[in-house]
Every structure is written in structure tokens, then in C-alpha cells.
């Protein structure tokens, strides 16, 4: 056996050198200091704290060291996501009998918030994948659940969600992709836009029109990659979310078996809206993680950077700014967690609360990350520093899963309906 002399001597010399070796490179990005007001483990059960700790460790060790490379080289980190799936992150709120982890929406929010501190873009994709797995688990029959869910929960297969089209974004119910019944197949024609994972994923949950105009004519089909007539547009070049490919998904006389339809015809839009409630909490949770990481980075920077003879942390303006950032972060977190609980319990205010939480958290967290970037001064603008990636990655959270304008529509409708 090869001698390890000098290394072994170092290893025995003192604990400061031989702290758990896989965690070496993360000291700078993950300085966990005295438990503070923004500690995300406040108020959680012991079990939730275990999930969270594990997710934070995974994020720090497996994601954070690569987040910049994945962004700059536009790498879809399949192996890392599969590692995450092995831990149960592939179908967090999918039922255990088909391979899921069977956890609650709140557990899910806590997990995505923690994972996001390692890489927002990858975590956001994992959350979309989870939503797709959940849709099949919830709306599919047993045959469909057994056919698709186990592979999705392990991430042996990846999923994409196709609702948006070039002509219908916020006005989702006006979608034009058609599915005409011919014998035991639907012939699908149309195209979907901005599909996360599109072209690299295996299973596509597609909302298409089987009936007349409006929401009641929409059904949900599961389309598998390799089906003749299914093709993809070019990979889009984005400001952020670069660790997931985004492409148009094109259907040209694509024949999809009727047994791939989830539920009955005309139920698709309902499924989409129900899926989006959870999706909104997930995306908001990703924003929370980015904001949390950014607050830590800003705090560390203020304690180190000196100007005018003292550290920036002595500036009252910056102290107050940091306090405001922390306050908005905790407020956002509380809203998101409450919305998760409401959704889990099927409360009557769940839909509005999910919309409010998504609106509030994505807006506030973007501002937090942006303020954190500002506090870094010129360094904040360099790609060597993580804060700019958090800003770029969460900017889109104010747009997708329902724009924040649509969130306002939902909330105002709820308010004005009671007249």
C-alpha cells in the first residue's frame, strides 16, 4: 500500500486541518455563525430540521462548488440531480407507494429553500420535475402512476411541464395546441414555448385542446421523448437559469396514445391550476434560498471590507439596510411557509395565499439579492462572486409560474368577488 506519510501527519496534527474533507472548499460560501434572526430552522420540528440540515449539506457540498460553472458553461447537471433523487428529492410530495417521499408541502418548501442556496437554477428545475411527478401521481390512474412515477422519483427519467405557448402566456386558457382523437390516439399539433428542460428531458406533461374554446376544452397528455412528430426548437440563451436548457417543444401530427391522458377530457386546465399552486410555493422557496445566501454573503462582506478606515459593518446606513433585508427575508419566509401549510390542509384561502406568497417573496427576495450585490460594490458585478448569479437566477421567478401581475389578478378577484 502506498505510504501517506506527510498527509497522515497533517491529518493527525490538529482538528482545524482535518475537518471533514469534503467540506473544505465551502468555508467561504457557507459561514454558519451564531444562530441569528434569519436562521431558517426556527420553528421547525426536529424531523424538519433533519431534512433541512441534510438539504443544506447537499447544497453546500454537491451544488455550491459547481454553481458558477454550471451557469457559465450551461451544463444540465444530470449526475448531481440523480444523486439528489437518491436522497429522495425526485418526488418529495409524491406518494411512497410509487417511489416518492410522501412529505408535506411545508417540508418541500424547507427543502427547496435549502437546496437553492447551492444553486437556484438547478433547484428550480428539480421543483418543476417534482411538480410533474406529482401531477401524474395525483391525476393519473394506477397504471399511469406505476408506469411513470418510479422512474421520475429516481430521476432515471426527467420531466418537463408544457403549458405556455408563443401566443398564450398569462392567458393560458387561450392555448392553441390541439389534440384530435383518432381511434386510440390523439394527434397533437402546435408548439409550446419556454419549456424548462425541453429537449433534454424524457417525459412531457402537455396541456392541449381536445374540446372547444376556453379552459373547459383543455386536457392533459403525457408525451414521451422519441414519439414521432415531437421535436424541439433551439436552446434559448438566457440571463439566468442556465443550468437548465430551455427550448420550444413542437408537435407535428404527433400521435399520443389515449392511455397517456391524465384524467378525463376537459380536466386539464383544472389540473394545471392545481399544479401551479404548489409550483408557486416551490418557486418562492427557491427565491428564499437565494435571498438567504445573499444576506449571508452581504453580511460577511460588510465584516471584511474596509473603507474610510473601518469595516463597512460600522456604517449605520449599511447596518440598517442589512436589517431591512433580513426583515423582508423572514417576512417572505413566513408567508411562503404559511401558504404551504394552507395548501397542505386544503384551506379555503390556499389559492390566494399561494399567489400572495409568490408575489411577495419573489419581489422582496429579488430586491434583497440586488441590495446584497450593491453592498459588494464593484466586486458584486464580477462573475467570481456568487451574489450576481443569485440576482440573475431569481429575476425570472417574478415572471414564470404566473407573472406577479397575474398574482395580483388572482388576489384582486378574490377581494372584489365578495361584493
Amino acid at each position, binding site marked *: 500500500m502506498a505510504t501517506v506519510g506527510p498527509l497522515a501527519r497533517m491529518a493527525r496534527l490538529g*482538528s482545524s486541518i*482535518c475537518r471533514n474533507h469534503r467540506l473544505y472548499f465551502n468555508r467561504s460560501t457557507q459561514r454558519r455563525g*451564531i444562530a441569528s434572526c434569519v436562521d431558517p430552522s426556527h420553528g421547525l420540528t*426536529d*424531523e424538519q430540521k*433533519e*431534512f433541512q440540515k441534510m438539504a443544506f449539506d*447537499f447544497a453546500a457540498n454537491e451544488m455550491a462548488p459547481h454553481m458558477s460553472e454550471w451557469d457559465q458553461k450551461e451544463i444540465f447537471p444530470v449526475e448531481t440531480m440523480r444523486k439528489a433523487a437518491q436522497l429522495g428529492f425526485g418526488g418529495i410530495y409524491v406518494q411512497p407507494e410509487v417511489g416518492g*417521499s410522501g412529505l408535506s408541502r411545508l417540508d418541500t418548501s424547507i427543502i427547496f429553500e435549502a437546496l437553492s442556496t447551492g444553486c437556484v437554477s438547478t433547484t428550480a428545475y428539480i421543483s418543476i420535475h417534482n411538480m410533474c411527478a406529482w401531477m401524474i401521481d395525483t391525476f393519473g390512474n394506477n397504471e399511469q402512476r406505476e408506469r411513470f412515477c418510479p422512474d421520475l422519483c429516481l430521476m432515471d427519467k426527467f420531466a418537463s411541464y408544457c403549458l405556455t405557448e408563443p401566443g398564450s402566456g398569462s392567458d393560458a386558457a387561450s392555448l392553441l395546441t390541439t389534440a384530435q382523437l383518432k381511434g386510440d390516439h390523439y394527434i397533437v399539433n402546435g408548439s409550446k414555448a419556454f419549456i424548462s428542460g425541453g429537449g433534454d428531458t424524457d417525459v412531457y406533461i402537455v396541456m392541449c385542446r381536445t374540446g372547444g374554446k376556453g379552459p373547459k376544452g383543455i386536457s392533459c397528455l403525457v408525451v414521451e421523448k422519441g414519439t414521432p412528430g415531437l421535436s424541439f426548437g433551439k436552446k434559448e440563451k438566457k440571463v439566468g437559469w442556465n443550468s437548465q436548457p430551455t427550448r420550444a417543444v413542437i408537435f407535428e401530427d404527433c400521435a399520443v396514445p389515449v392511455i397517456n391522458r391524465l384524467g378525463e377530457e376537459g380536466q386539464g386546465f383544472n389540473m394545471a391550476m392545481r399544479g401551479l399552486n404548489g409550483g408557486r410555493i416551490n418557486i418562492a422557496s427557491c427565491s428564499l434560498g437565494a435571498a438567504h445566501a445573499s444576506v449571508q454573503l452581504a453580511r460577511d462582506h460588510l465584516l471584511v471590507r474596509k473603507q474610510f478606515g473601518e469595516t463597512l459593518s460600522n456604517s449605520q446606513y449599511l447596518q440598517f439596510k442589512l436589517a431591512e433585508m433580513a426583515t423582508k427575508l423572514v417576512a417572505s419566509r413566513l408567508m411562503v411557509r404559511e401558504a404551504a401549510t394552507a395548501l397542505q390542509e386544503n384551506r379555503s384561502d390556499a389559492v390566494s395565499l399561494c399567489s400572495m406568497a409568490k408575489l411577495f417573496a419573489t419581489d422582496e427576495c429579488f430586491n434583497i439579492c440586488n441590495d446584497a450585490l450593491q453592498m459588494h460594490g464593484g466586486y458584486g458585478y464580477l462573475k467570481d462572486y456568487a451574489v450576481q448569479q443569485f440576482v440573475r437566477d431569481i429575476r425570472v421567478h417574478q415572471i414564470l409560474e404566473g407573472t406577479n401581475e397575474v398574482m395580483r389578478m388572482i388576489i384582486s378577484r378574490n377581494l372584489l368577488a365578495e361584493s
Partner: protein
Amino acid sequence: MSGRVLVGVKRVIDYAVKIRVKPDNSCVVTDGVKHSMNPFCEIAVEEAVKMKEKKLIKEVVVVSCGPQQAMETIRTALAMGADRGIHVEVTGKDYENLGPLQVSKIMAALAKKEDVLFVILGKQAIDDDCNQTGQMTAALLDWPQGTFASELSMEGDKIKVVREIDGGLETVKINTPAVITADLRLNTPRYATLPNIMKAKKKKIANVKPADLGVDITSRLEVLRVDEPPQREAGVKVETVDDLVARLKEAGRI
């Protein structure tokens, strides 16, 4: 023998935390500070669980000494795959004064009670860096020890241990029952999976007091003072070698 393994785990201040000394210099600040399982203990748990998965041993029992919070550390070990836990309750001043000698007496008592094949511990804790508990436990039990293990294998009823020593690697074969301490390169601890964290909730953690085991935990040591390491001071530049020698003499260094 039972095919049972006892793993000792310690709850310590998380490795990434900046340590602060209390203003009265009595001890380090622990209130509100993030704690986690000692990294070498994680490695010990991982090794035991791996051996169980390879069917070399039958049961992994994890033990931790301390106040209520020690249960968190035991649960983490259960989530990694240990079968059951033992929480030895030590609180307040007793806990502040708890050191390797007392812990090894507890471990020795439990090792005999549980009729174990071997005891495995982390080689040292990252808070006190004592590197004594494993060795003392073996001495109290008069069992062979395989410390600083970077590789472990069962050979019949003996254990082959590759130890990391100053000169390189030493391989020893020891009889069971024995005490092993885990070094850094023994393995890479797994992440607990979500299903395992949930299963861990159902696993049993027994609660015992040191007195129940017939162990006296009074400390023979008294901590007089805790200080931060001296702040690094600015150096001084000198012009000539003579100057340097004079300065060194002045400072009493030569």
C-alpha cells in the same frame, strides 16, 4: 458474540462556526451556536452502517452522552442507518466537566452490557481534540485497540485494521471484542435520505443515567481559564543580521 457494534457519537460546535470565548474566560460560547455531529463520529457511524449492509455485523447501537440536545445527534445517526440509540443523560455542570475519562467509563460499561463485537468511535472530537476516549475505553475493558483506522475488515473473528501513523500505514490484526477509532480517510459519510430520516423517528432511543451504569462522572480536572489564541501581531523589519540577532536576544528567544 452478538454481532452488535456500539458507536459513540458526540455533539460538538459545528466546524464552520467562528468560535468565541465568553467574556469571563470560563468557557467557549455555546448558547445559540450551531452544533452538529463530530465529523469523525460521522465517519464511525458510516463504517458501522456499511458493515451492517455487507452483513458483517447484525446491529448498530449508537450512544451519546449529554443533555437533551444529544438526542439530535443520535437521531442523525439513526437517519444514517443505525438501529437504535442510547442517550446517557448528563446535564448542567456535570456536562461542562464531562471529559474522556468519564465518557470512556460509560462506554466501557455499555460495551459490556450490550455484549458488543466492537466499539467504534471517532479518533477525536473537534472541540477538545483530546484523542483519548477510544484508547481509555480499551484500557478500561482490557480490550485490544485499533486506533486511527483508515481501513477496516473482518477476518473471521479478528479485525484487520490499517492505521495511519507518522511513518505511513501500519496494519494490525486484533482479536474481538475490540475498540476502534475512525480516522479521516476511513470512508466518506453518506447523506441521510428523506425516507431514512422519517424511519429514524420510529427507532428507539433508550434513556439512561451514568449512575444506572454504576459510573461516577466526577471530574478530576478543573478548567481554570479559556483564552482565544493570541492575535497575530505585526512583525518588525530589521536592516542587518546583527540587528536581527540583537532583537532576538532582547525578546529572549535566543
